Each structure stands twice: as structure tokens, then as C-alpha cells.
């Protein structure tokens, strides 16, 4: 990496170098009309150049912002690069944002230009524009359904590129000049954090932040041009920006854009990436899929699979805890690899994985062990938008169950007096856009306050306990870690989401979301008829099923953890609707918004601490077009201790 020198201090310069060094090497693949289409690094640069020139022809000035919104598409990554080539700042947005959310960000970021994937996003942006007059031009990639649109300031990407070609005839050196003016300390991107509380904040990351951290991570993990990654996480998430954009450019590896959000798992199988980044949500989905398929198999196969999986998990757990491994399981492992682990990995599309990260939230230890036991090198990554992602990562060969690994090279970590994790690194962001107050609260003398409670153990591993503000105590002073319990519950394929309650209360209770796929399948196999999510969630049989899971969690809590064993779950209920980002109950990255839930479901929560066993409930639901409706249901409450 050093040979390319310091001059390559922005992404446009790096991609131009890639276009020469790795001219024919695949940079992006996209599955379109059922076939994987490839674009080389030369194509990458060439298309971005044309888009940039098109924008320039429309008066794009240095410092202008481009909002980018849509699923992961090569054209959108090119729009990001094109904006940077002109000295502008791309602002990637969550594609499933509501109009209200989009309006806030587009307005706050002062975006003059927007590049959208398709009609759906254009429709939203056209509404946004009525409230954000600063937004001048909307460019769309997919022209389907756009024929009847005649609004001014609306252009197809093809038309934009055509304009760019014409513009270049008059000013052949324009783009090179603009690219040369870019500096490492310029702002490269503004990532709006979805935020579990309050309005989104726009973290400004410089080229230096992203490129330095991408280099450090690339070198530590030994990534190179021959690696393959799947670009499927929202482009607005800093994780995707780091992996699919920054790291891909720095290391020169290929990213693959799935056909649609619904095909990710089958596309994963077709691509077989070597480098994979997934939030716990995805690992949970994969696990659920595996479990359903195992349950559907004929019993000899099912038995065999269960036996070997248990064996492998036991082995992996011992390994992670540094305990000696007994001989028999060790000898059986190759057989398991042949019969179970290998085929399963292959089936999931994870056969070629060299490095897989889980990040965003803590992944439940049981799920973590499950995948590692299959021979997939899953590692915890601890990161933040404000740090250009990387803070700590588990090193190959030094992975432990209860830590997030050691600090990345160049990252310093210290723990504040009240147990909060602070860090400092070349990736520390430039601040929040137009929000110096929030910047001051987050960064102090170059140290970022993570908001997480944790400590460094004797081997230098960082251990995160919980969000500093979430860690709580029951009324009698018993220590209680909500996320820890929730992750244990979510190990069950039947539990999609769990929200525990307890701080200041006499005992622990939990609100549960069942997994419609897994529980639905389970119900069908038992011939239990149901009409809807709400109906299924309130079936007595389903309560029995979930109760077993709660009992399992309580038992393992009692066996495993001395500090937390007092915080057993006493009562639970199954929510009659799925927690949904449209209803603001979880964030777009699927983090539970506790405060909001506590407020919205106050009646249910009150009932959990009363002595009723049923409670009538109404809930507001918001449809994607912004309209609202009401779901009414009677929700049952189950007392685990009483049975």
C-alpha cells in the first residue's frame, strides 16, 4: 500500500490509480435481469467521470452536497465518487426513510443535488423538494415508470452522462483539475446516524479519516484485490461506506450488489464472498433459516445434524474459553466437517469466508459460537460512525467469547472514571455538521465518548457490558443488563425481538416479538391455523413455545453468570404487532428505542407489574405512505414463576 504514496489522499485519486493498476479487474458486480453484470475499475472511474461532468455542466460547485438514496447500486456508488471528484460532499440516505425523515436530512445537509435509484425514491424526493427549495436537481437511475414525469429539475442518469460528455468537449481538463484540488483533510462524506434518541446527526468524515482507517483494517486482515464482498447493507450506514466503498477502493477488491433486498440470501450463496460484514440481525436471520431447514429435514438427517452441531459448539466454546479440548470430539470434527459443517457453510454461501465481522450491536454469544463452530471466522467488531468504524476487532487466533477484541493499530482506548469507554484514533471524525454543541459533547481533547460501559481486561481485550445508560438495577439492587438477556432470548429462532424491563422494578419482565417465519412454520407443522401476525402471536400454543424459551434463558442465567443470576425473567408477553421502524419503535438499523416503547406500551408494561393475565391494547401503525391505522388486540400475560 505504501508504494502508492501520499499523493493518493482522496477517493477520486485512488480510483483513478485503480483504473490504471487494476484496469480489467472487477470492481463492482450487480445482478440485473437474473445475470451478474461486471464492471471493472476502469468502468468505475469512467462512469463516475461522466456523472461528475454531467453534474458540473449543471453548475455543481465545490462544497455542494449530493443526497444519494436507494439500494446498493453501482450507479449510486459512482454518484458518490462523482460528487467527491468535484470537491462536493455526498450524503447517503437510508432508502426506506419516510418522507419526514428524508426532508429533515436533505434540509439539514443543504443538499443541492440528489441521485435516486428509482421512481419510488424520486416520488419521495419530489415531495421533499416542496419543503426544501435548496434541492435543485434530482437524478434517477432506473427510468421505469418515469415516462410521464415532466417536473423541472428531474433528469435521468443517462441524460446526465450525455450532458457530461458534451461538457467535456469544451473543457477537457476540467475533471482532472477538480480532482487535483481535493485534499485529504476535506470532508469526504456526511453520514447521518439513525440515532436511538432525538434527531439524526450528520457525522463529517474526512478522506484522511476513511482512507487511514481503511488501510489499517485492510493491512491487519490482509485484504487484497482478489477478495469479494457483498454490498447489501444500507449505503447510508457507515459500515457499508467503509467496506463497500472505502476499503474496496483502498484494497481494490470487488463488491457485489444483490438483485433486490429480498434476494440477498440467495445472492450471498451465488457470490460466496470472502469478506462479509453483517449486523446481528443478519446472523440471526441466517441462523433462523438453518434451524427451519433442519427441522424440516427427515429425522435421521436432523438427528445427525443436531449431534454434530452440539459437538462443534461445545468444542468451540471450550476453545474460546481457553479450556482443554477432549480427544473424542476432536477426532470426530473432520467427520462433522464432511457431513454437516461443510455442506451447511456451502448452503449459506459462507464457504469462502476468510473474515466476517459482526457489528452494530452485540451478537448473542450463542449465535456467535454457532457460526464459529461451523468454521466461519466471525469476529466481533467494535466501532462507531464517529470513529470511521474501526475501534477494536478480534484478532485471528485470539477470539474470545466475551470481548470485542483488541484495539486496532493506531487506536488508543481508555476508560473514564465512571466506566465509559473513550478512544482516540486517526479515524476520529471532523464533527457533526452544523451541530457544534453535539460535537463538544462527544469529543473531548480528541477523545471520543462512546456512551458504552466497558473495561480492558488483563490481556488488553476490550469488554463491553452495555450502553452506559442502559445498565440498571432492580428495585432491590440486583444488577441487570438488558441487552445481555435480550440476546439470550434472541438465540431462539422463534424470538425475533425482545425488550426487557427491570430497572427500578421489583422483577424483570420482557416484551417479545415472535419471528413470523419460524413460528408460522412451527404452527403449520402442528396444524395450528392462524390468520395474521396478531392472531398467531396470541395463540396459547405459541405462549407455551415461548415460555419454554424463557425458562431456558432463566436456567442458563442461573448456571452461567454470578453477577447477573438474580435478574431472572418473571413475566413475559408477546406483542401483537411487529416492532417497526415506520412506527419509530426501532431504528432503521434495528436498534430498539426503549424510551419510545416504554411510552407507547405503557398499559402493557403496567399490566406486567400488576396481577392481571390479559390486557386490551390499541396500537398505532404507520403505513409506508405515511398514513396511520390502528390495531386492536387483547394481549395475554404469562407468569413464568407461577408455573
Amino acid at each position: 500500500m505504501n508504494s502508492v504514496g501520499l499523493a493518493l489522499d482522496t477517493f477520486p485519486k485512488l480510483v483513478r490509480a485503480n483504473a490504471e493498476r487494476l484496469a480489467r479487474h472487477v470492481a463492482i458486480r450487480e445482478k440485473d435481469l437474473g445475470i451478474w453484470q461486471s464492471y471493472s475499475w476502469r468502468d468505475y472511474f469512467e462512469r463516475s467521470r461522466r456523472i461528475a461532468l454531467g453534474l458540473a455542466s449543471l453548475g455543481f460547485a465545490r462544497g455542494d452536497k449530493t443526497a444519494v438514496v436507494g439500494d446498493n447500486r453501482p450507479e449510486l456508488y459512482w454518484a458518490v465518487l462523482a460528487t467527491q471528484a468535484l470537491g462536493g460532499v455526498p450524503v447517503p440516505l437510508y432508502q426506506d426513510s419516510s418522507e419526514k425523515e428524508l426532508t429533515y436530512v436533505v434540509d439539514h445537509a443543504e443538499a443541492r443535488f440528489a441521485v435516486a435509484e428509482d421512481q419510488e425514491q424520486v416520488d419521495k424526493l419530489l415531495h421533499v423538494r416542496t419543503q426544501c427549495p435548496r434541492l435543485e436537481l434530482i437524478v434517477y437511475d432506473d427510468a421505469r415508470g418515469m415516462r410521464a414525469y415532466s417536473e423541472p429539475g428531474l433528469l435521468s442518469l443517462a441524460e446526465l452522462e450525455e450532458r457530461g460528455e458534451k461538457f467535456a468537449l469544451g473543457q477537457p481538463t476540467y475533471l482532472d483539475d477538480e480532482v487535483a484540488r481535493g485534499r485529504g483533510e476535506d470532508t469526504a462524506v456526511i453520514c447521518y446516524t439513525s440515532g436511538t434518541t432525538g434527531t439524526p446527526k450528520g457525522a463529517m468524515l474526512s478522506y484522511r479519516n476513511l482512507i487511514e482507517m481503511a488501510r489499517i483494517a485492510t493491512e491487519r486482515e490482509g485484504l487484497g484485490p482478489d477478495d469479494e464482498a457483498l454490498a447489501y447493507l444500507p449505503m447510508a450506514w457507515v459500515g457499508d461506506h467503509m467496506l463497500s466503498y472505502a476499503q474496496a477502493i483502498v484494497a481494490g477488491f470487488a463488491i457485489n450488489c444483490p438483485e433486490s433486498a429480498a434476494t440477498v440470501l440467495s445472492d450471498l450463496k451465488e457470490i460466496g464472498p470472502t469478506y462479509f460484514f453483517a449486523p446481528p440481525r443478519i446472523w440471526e436471520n441466517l441462523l433462523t433459516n438453518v434451524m427451519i431447514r433442519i427441522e424440516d429435514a427427515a429425522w435421521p438427517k436432523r438427528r445427525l445434524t443436531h449431534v454434530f452441531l452440539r459437538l462443534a459448539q461445545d468444542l468451540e466454546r471450550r476453545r474460546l474459553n481457553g479450556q482443554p479440548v477432549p480427544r473424542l470430539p476432536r477426532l470426530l470434527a473432520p467427520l462433522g466437517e464432511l457431513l454437516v459443517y461443510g455442506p451447511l457453510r456451502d448452503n449459506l454461501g459462507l464457504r469462502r469466508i476468510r473474515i466476517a465481522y459482526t457489528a452494530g450491536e452485540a451478537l448473542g454469544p450463542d449465535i456467535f459460537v454457532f457460526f464459529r463452530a461451523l468454521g466461519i471466522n466471525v469476529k466481533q467488531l467494535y466501532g462507531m460512525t464517529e470513529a470511521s468504524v474501526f475501534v477494536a476487532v478480534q484478532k485471528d487466533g485470539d477470539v474470545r467469547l466475551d470481548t470485542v477484541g483488541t484495539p486496532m493499530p493506531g487506536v488508543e482506548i481508555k476508560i473514564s472514571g465512571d466506566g465509559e469507554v473513550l478512544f482516540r484514533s486517526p479515524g476520529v471524525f471532523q464533527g457533526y455538521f452544523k451541530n457544534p454543541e453535539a460535537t463538544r459533547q462527544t469529543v473531548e481533547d480528541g477523545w471520543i465518548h462512546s456512551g458504552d460501559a466497558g473495561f480492558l481486561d488483563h490481556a488488553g481485550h476490550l469488554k463491553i457490558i452495555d450502553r452506559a445508560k442502559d445498565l440498571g438495577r432492580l428495585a432491590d439492587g440486583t444488577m441487570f443488563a438488558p441487552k445481555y438477556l435480550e440476546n439470550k432470548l434472541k438465540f431462539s429462532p422463534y424470538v425475533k425481538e425482545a425488550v426487557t424491563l427491570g430497572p427500578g422494578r421489583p422483577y424483570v419482565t420482557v416484551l417479545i416479538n415472535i419471528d413470523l417465519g419460524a413460528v408460522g412454520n412451527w404452527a403449520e407443522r402442528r396444524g395450528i391455523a392462524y390468520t395474521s401476525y396478531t392472531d398467531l402471536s396470541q395463540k396459547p400454543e405459541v405462549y407455551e413455545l415461548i415460555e419454554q424459551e424463557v425458562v431456558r434463558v432463566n436456567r442458563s442465567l442461573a448456571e452461567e453468570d454470578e453477577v447477573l443470576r438474580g435478574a431472572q425473567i418473571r413475566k413475559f408477553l408477546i406483542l401483537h404487532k411487529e416492532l417497526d421502524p415506520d412506527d419509530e419503535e426501532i431504528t432503521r438499523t434495528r436498534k430498539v428505542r426503549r424510551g419510545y416503547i416504554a411510552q407507547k406500551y405503557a398499559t402493557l408494561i403496567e399490566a406486567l407489574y400488576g396481577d392481571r393475565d390479559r390486557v386490551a391494547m390499541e396500537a398505532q401503525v404507520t403505513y409506508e405512505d405515511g398514513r396511520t391505522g390502528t390495531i386492536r388486540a387483547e394481549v395475554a400475560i404469562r407468569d413464568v414463576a407461577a408455573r
Partner: protein
Amino acid sequence: MTTGTGSLLEVDGISVRFGALLALNRVSLTIPRGEIAAIIGPNGAGKTTLLNCISGFYHPYEGTIRFAGRDRTHLRPPEVATLGIARTFQNVALFRGMSVLDNIMTGRVLKMRGSFLLDALWWGPARRQELEHRAFVERIIDFLEIQAIRKTSAGRLPYGLQKRVELARALAAEPQLLLLDEPMAGMNVEEKEDMCRFILDVNSEFGTTIALIEHDMGVVMDISDHVVVLDYGHKIADGTPEQVRKDEAVLNAYLGVAHD
């Protein structure tokens, strides 16, 4: 939306009788090219019978049906399909054991030319032809956003998706006229909205003329250019959604008349 010129379908005074029951009584209607027309009416009004006449499944004992300027009152369904009319069914009629992709491919059957031997060997023209048809079908899959279920067998899909696959199969025949028999029956609000969007998109992207039977009045009023109302085999109204909404006879047929 009404971009075409002239009428694509002209039904002139057709009558159909099942024994003593007069299912259609001298019904006439005209559907201009590029239009979305809705046929509505209470249960047993003769809507499906009318659609079946157009698709050649029933033959009227009087009256004529002209399609694209030619009289084709007495053609059989395969001949009608070759002329460029495709349909979906009130009760989903997919090949349940076949994949979604194969189901949609069957919509291309009329466009395929080949010999048994070449097809069996998948050689030469046969291979080229199949690739072309597959590419066409992929465009429809993309259009209707069913990539994720391409290889799922049709019988395992939820109802709303089966309806969408049926639409895809009809589109695969590249019809000039698309007949949809209750495309939204039994769907929830979200599925209905999706289906509406697809119907409008099909109409504007491919310029396909669409005749649909539907019970959901909101849907009908929203998406059609033109509404035909049947009651007991008679046509009682024909006009724009606004006109039909205000029509006395329609209100009576739907809400009943007070006999006092």
C-alpha cells in the same frame, strides 16, 4: 394514459344464454387502445361471462366481437391468444408444482417456434430462442419485482404473490389486451396497492390495454379511465368513473331501491 388511437375492442350486442338464464343480454362496449377499463356489477351480473366471451371461452349466440378491427366472435381461446389477448383468472390457475420462472415461461409458448428434435437437443435455433425468451421473462420478473421467488414453486407462494405471478405469465405473451378477472380479490391493503401500481405501470410502460373486473370500488375509481356497469346481464352504465359514480341506475343496482 389514453395514448392509443381508435378502439382496440368492440363488443356489439352480444348475448349469452345458459339454459333458461340469460347471462348477457345485448351487451355492447368499446375499449379504446391504451385504456384501462373496469367492468363492475353485483354478483351474477355477467362480468366473468363477458370476459370469457372476449377470450373466446364462450361464444355469444348473437352479436359480434371485433378485436383490432377484425371480427373474431367465433375464435377459440388459442386463436384469441395468438391474436394478442391474455388473461388472468379469478381463481389462480398456475401450475402449482412448477417454478415461478417456468410458469412465466409458459406464457411465451405461443411465441416459440421449434422442432421437437432441436428442442430436445437444446441446440442451434432452439437454444438461441430459449435464451431470448428467458431474457424477455427476466424483464418481466424485474418489472413485477418477483426476483426473490424466481425458483420457488408456485404452489408454495402466498396468494397475493400467486396473483402477481399470474399477471407475469399473462404479460409474457406480450398481449395487446390484458384481461384481469378480479386481480385484487382476497388481498390485503398493501398487496392491493402493489397490484394497482403494477397495473398502472404495465399500462404506461408497455401501452397495454387493460380490461379488469374488480369489486373494490376504491381501486376501480382510482385506476380506470372508463367503467362499464353490468346488472343481471344488462349494461346499465358506461362512462368515466365520475359519471358512473353519480349514475342513478348504478346506485340502485348496488344499494337497492326503496319500494314504497
